[in-house]
């Protein structure tokens, strides 16, 4: 299971706590993790990525093991701490707006 941490408003929307776990079939990448997340929590469709282009929404960032993966290819395999469930995949909202 892959652990994913969501920003507070998306936790409310999905009616979950800070962290969720999703079963990701096949190669584990940012894209496949988000695909699995949206499949299990369909109300999150369009809130993290654009519905059609699957581009990351501008005010959201992805962090992996302390590194900013926001601008990495969504098809790069995630590292072992993520795939082994030791570290969560972080979806973080930008601090903006006061």
């Amino acid at each position, binding site marked *: 299971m892959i652990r994913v941490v969501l920003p507070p408003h998306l936790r409310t929307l999905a009616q979950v706590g800070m962290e969720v776990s999703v079963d990701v079939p096949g190669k584990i990448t940012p894209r496949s993790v988000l695909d699995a997340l949206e499949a299990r929590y*369909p*109300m999150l*469709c369009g809130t993290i990525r654009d519905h059609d282009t699957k581009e990351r929404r501008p005010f959201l960032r992805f962090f992996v093991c302390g590194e900013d993966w926001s601008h990495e290819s969504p098809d790069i395999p995630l590292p072992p701490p993520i795939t082994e469930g030791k570290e969560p995949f972080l979806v973080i909202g930008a601090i903006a707006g006061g």
Partner: protein
Amino acid sequence: MSKVRVLVGTHKGAFVLNSDGKREKWDVSGPFFGGWEVYHLKGSPADPDRIYASQTSGWFGQIIQRSDDGGKTWIQPGTPPGEQKTPQGIPKGESNKFVYNTAPEKDGKPLTTHQWYDGTQHPWEFKRVWHLEPSLADPDAVYAGVEDAAIFQSKNGGKTWDELPGLRGHGTGPKWQPGAGGMCLHTIVLDQKNPNRMYIAISAAGAFRTDDGGKTWKPINQGLRSQYIPDPTAEIGHCVHRIAAHKSRPNTLFMQKHWDVMRSDDAGDQWHEVSGNLPTDFGFVIDVHAHEPETIYVIPIKSDSEHFPPEGKLRVYRSKTGGNEWEPLSKGLPQKDCYVNILRDAMAVDSMDPCGIYFGTTGGQVYASRDAGDNWAPIVRDLPAVLSVEVQTIS
């Protein structure tokens, strides 16, 4: 005895206010969707317990919410009632998909670009739903006016949305450009007698009408004069802020434009100015008395950069002559040091007798008058900035 329900959208959530027919004491519930901008909520005329809400965020995009119990509980209408959870017990719902129609088709010529602030062409990009207008007859049918300007329709209670592409495709779309608040379709007025006729308004493109249920559209801006555009009498480019109509006279329209209060008596084919003796004819809201089709209300705002009442005095202006002759209404409203704004969707009327008038401010107050504007009092105050106010009169 009738009840009155006031639906308030704010910068940080939605609120629902309920009162009996006396309209003296108000029960305030909310915030719903706390932390999100709620641009608009509106109840179905066909089923007052059915309410649609536009929940939106610069971070997370657009969500459509629906209540089937008068605003007590809300769902994202992605699955039928009774099937709101997956087999794993997880709530479902994905009603937030608004995709522009870009396929060539018979109803129009869907566009890919409009005019940007600098005059170049810019792609259409969905940002949010500004206005929801439920059908007069079918609780499952609802229109959505969106930014970048387009009109969408749902026929299944908000579950899925399809654009009515004839509006963007009718020909003037490449000339539309955003106003200061973005290029938004913010007003939808349904003709109360002719189900095929509908009016919409776009900032800053102007007003448009369909006579065939949304398949084809035409600009209805003759008579408007806007000094802030290169051709003040152009076919499109006018920053219309709001249009209102009385249900008994659907061909008579009242408009608060960026500057100027206007009137049309032929379904928008021709407009004439009725600003008369207003202290300033800039403003956002306009509405019509529920029982007197020639009695209209505006709230003058000082100017297009000074978005507050003149002299720091919050005054509603009423005309009982369909415009031109206006009287200030100030009893119960702050008459010094008041510098709030009243946004375009933030005025509504009930259909009680006497008619109730309601408006919300960017300072978080919702004021109401139980006597058609003669006296005012806040029914709630200190909310987040109010974006919209709608009223339901429930028998």
